[in-house]
């Protein structure tokens, strides 16, 4: 793990090899600079001990101990390599250690987030009726009773799960045809003209639209659309633009570019010979696309769509500004406010059902966060499984 076998040929004539020879071992010039494989373990152990001592001086805590250990390990390794081998190898060791530490630092928040959500969320998830009830009838007094008298925390996320499901399905129904057809246009019909280059560029740009801006757009567009419709037909005057379908439109603005990017990539790897073979048999282009190109790429497309769904199902901001927040279950996309799971989490944290007794609200929020993470992870897993299982076979001719 620590030592490359790459010899430092250029500087292997360094004079520090006395210490090695006094130990009675003769080494070839190529390996004399190699440090023992166990060295990093020893250094780590020593720096852990020293680190605990140092952090004890300023009041022991785990974070301080880990920081001291890491710093000491880096420094000690550098100094040892510098004195025993040479500066170049020491620099190499230094950066190797820093890169390992960078990786460990990156793992830290992941572990911390998952651990905190699981540890706090599980009790809420196990509360009776958490998945099968909504928040109707859950008032501040109910929560106050649970916190002060220890009765079970009531209320659940049925309405939020249904809301998320309905909105996400609607967004998928809107974005997949548009995204798929666009990528078909880009791969099969466009010939590198201005339009196709513009589409590619603006799809890339669209990937970076802030999610809240997508929400603002959908809200404004829907209000304008309903207003116009009302002016023309005089029928929809009572409709408010705050409803599920507005949120679905906002989510599709975020989802379309992802779908286009992934399906385009998948269509491009379909070998041209397949298309040519189909054309040579007299099959029309649209049938070739439907029967040859898409079936070949379907596993990649399906996994790309699943990943896109996983991305938008966790979006909070666009739904927060378009769909509102209610306590009861609403299946209707076109009528009334609708709650999505992420918005539920946010609202339970920020506006607890009972402001003075917020514990039950927080418990519900954490449990809902756990459910959301599980949903997203499952979707990611499904995407990988689809990509792997339904991928065109790599052998077996």
């Amino acid at each position: 793990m620590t030592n490359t076998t790459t010899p430092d040929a250029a500087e292997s004539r360094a004079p520090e090899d006395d210490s090695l020879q006094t130990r009675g071992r003769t080494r070839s010039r190529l390996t004399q600079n190699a440090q023992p494989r166990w060295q990093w373990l020893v250094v780590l152990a020593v720096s852990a001990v020293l680190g605990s001592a140092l952090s004890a001086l300023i009041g022991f805590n785990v974070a301080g101990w880990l920081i001291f250990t890491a710093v000491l390990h880096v420094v000690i390794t550098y100094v040892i390599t510098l004195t025993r081998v040479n500066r170049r190898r020491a620099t190499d060791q230094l950066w190797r250690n820093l890169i390992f530490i960078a990786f460990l630092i990156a793992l830290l928040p992941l572990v911390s987030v998952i651990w905190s959500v699981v540890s706090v969320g599980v009790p809420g998830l196990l509360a009776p009726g958490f998945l099968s009830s909504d928040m109707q009838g859950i008032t501040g007094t109910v929560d106050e009773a649970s916190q002060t008298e220890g009765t079970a925390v009531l209320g659940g996320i049925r309405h939020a799960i249904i809301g998320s499901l309905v909105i996400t399905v609607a967004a998928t129904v809107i974005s997949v045809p548009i995204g798929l057809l666009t990528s078909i246009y880009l791969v099969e019909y466009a010939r590198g003209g201005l339009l196709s280059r513009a589409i590619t560029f603006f799809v890339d740009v669209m990937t970076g639209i802030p999610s809240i801006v997508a929400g603002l757009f959908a809200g404004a567009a829907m209000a304008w659309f309903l207003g116009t419709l009302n002016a023309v037909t005089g029928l929809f005057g009572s409709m408010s633009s705050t409803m599920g379908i507005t949120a679905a439109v906002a989510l599709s603005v975020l989802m379309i570019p992802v779908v286009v990017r992934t399906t385009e990539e998948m269509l491009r790897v379909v070998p041209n010979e397949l298309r040519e073979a189909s054309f040579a048999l007299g099959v029309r282009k649209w049938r070739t696309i439907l029967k040859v190109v898409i079936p070949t790429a379907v596993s990649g497309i399906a996994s790309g769509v699943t990943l896109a769904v996983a991305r938008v199902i966790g979006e909070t901001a666009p739904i927060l500004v378009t769909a509102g927040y209610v306590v009861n279950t609403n299946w209707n996309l076109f009528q009334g406010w609708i709650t999505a799971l992420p918005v539920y989490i946010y609202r339970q944290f920020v506006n607890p059902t009972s402001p003075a007794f917020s514990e039950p609200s927080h418990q519900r929020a954490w449990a809902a966060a756990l459910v959301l993470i599980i949903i997203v992870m499952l979707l990611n897993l499904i995407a990988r499984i689809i990509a792997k299982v339904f991928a065109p076979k790599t052998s077996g001719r």
Partner: protein
Amino acid sequence: MATPDDTSTRTSTDPSTGAAPTRSTGRGGSTALSRSDSRGVFGDRLFAGLALAAGILILAILAFVVLFLTLNSGPAVVDDEDGLIIGQFVDYAWPLMIGTLIASAIALLLATPVAVGVALFISHYAPPRLSKPIGYVIDLLAAIPSVVYGAWGMSFLAPGLVPGYEWLHENLGFIPLFAGDPSQTGRTVLTAGIVLSVMVLPIITSVSREIFVQTPKLHEEAALALGATRWEMITMTVFPFARAGIISGIMLGLGRALGETMAVTLVLSPGLLTASLISSGNSTIPAEIALGYPEAPPGSERQAQLIAIGLVLFVITLLVNMVARWIVSRHKDFSGAN
């Protein structure tokens, strides 16, 4: 793509390739070639038209985003009585813009070194067998919803950082960044920046990693053969090759950090613009919209104001993303030589 891929896809789709023509001739009969042909022509046109329409629709959506935001933000800068009130709007918007930039800058400063390190770890240091699973693990960071990060930052990270902020204030209080009373809840712009850095890390990592593994193998091996250590090999071959990729990864991360809403909304307790990173204060554009929009009555000037800062945010992220894409596309032509 690689040859094994080609042969594989061919074998797997052979049945459908074979099936398509048999079916179409079977339906048309042996002599009705022309009839099935005309139907096919219609299908072809319809399909091509649909595909083209979808492509144009995407451009139209983007145009509509700009159009609707601009139209609806009108009342924020034009008042019935006072005429143009741009100055008032700018007074409102610029602290939010600065706040957004501060939070994003912190996020990038913290995330970039770690992200590049992780990308190097995956591409050049980790055992080859482990590098793929490690890549998945880092991608998991990107999969966690932002509201969960916000909740984590608010409930776990912020309280944990309070002693650190107090230490910073006592020892480095002479620097304006650490002046001011340290927040007792830890919900400051620095905490928000740290949470944002966790969220942009996987973006920078995945872009850099993709470029790192594309470094020409011959360059790397040549450097090693000349006696370079692994780090020297990386500085001599990998970094020069990947510079543009790293920069564009950082820009994409910046785009994400600028537009990130829920994490900042939950973590930050918003306030007036201050230079201090460790006392409560500052706010960002997305957080301001998320907090204000649900309360703003439809069609009011307040709503127009929020849509207007949304437009400002949109333009900023658009510029950042366009620059990032431009760097990538320039790099593409450049690496064609390999």
